[in-house]
């Protein structure tokens, strides 16, 4: 069973307008790599040059923020659902 990924409006330019994607991987990092193959540009929106998730992108696994799990190395299982949201922040 694949992992379902909900993509926010601002990132749908990388997904041909698709709101949900399905992918596979045993960690968030592997999932991002898998999705990047079919949705070029998505990785750059999520992962920085340091290989970590951007500070102002929220990634959730089954509604839990991965910051409080294992970040980009958070393990995934088949059937998990992943959501992506740009942070809402400012000064």
């Amino acid at each position, binding site marked *: 069973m694949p992992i379902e990924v909900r993509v*926010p409006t601002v990132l749908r330019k990388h997904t041909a307008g698709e709101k949900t994607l399905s992918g596979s991987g045993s960690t968030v990092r592997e999932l991002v790599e898998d999705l990047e193959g079919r949705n070029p540009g998505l990785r750059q929106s999520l992962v920085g040059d340091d290989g970590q998730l951007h500070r102002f992108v929220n990634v959730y696994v089954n509604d839990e*923020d991965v910051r409080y799990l294992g970040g980009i190395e958070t393990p995934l299982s088949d059937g998990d659902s992943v959501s992506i*949201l*740009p*942070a809402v*922040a400012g000064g």
Partner: protein
Amino acid sequence: MTRARSEGRFDVDRTTYEALVAHARSDFPYEVCGLLAVRDGQVVRHYEVPNAARSMTFYTMEGKALLRAMREIDDEGWELGAIYHSHTHTEAFPSATDVELAFYPEAAYLIVSLQHDEPVVRAFSIAGGSVSERTLFIDGEEASAGTRWT
């Protein structure tokens, strides 16, 4: 008062407007933040989202509350009409940080300033690093708040 190019409008009803101001005052001197969902140009839901930073100079919406709100907006077929936050010690104009971290170009950014006794609320679009002002209408009338402190 800092000004930007004027383009477009944002409509809010009086009840929601007053709720925004009340929310801003509720955690003074800390910044508060939230979202407004719209349907057909009308606000249909007001979400007060906790400020995970609980700071006088910064806000970041608490992740799970943000997810719940965004998912409901999506599921209901609403639009993210506005993202709001308060400035407790500065004017109602986007700060450099607000511009840098504006990831929702389709939304209006509302800022509630409590710098003076009388609150000032202004609306902006922030996209690609540039700011334009949206005229704020309350119950269909142009709000005077944006021009009071000149």
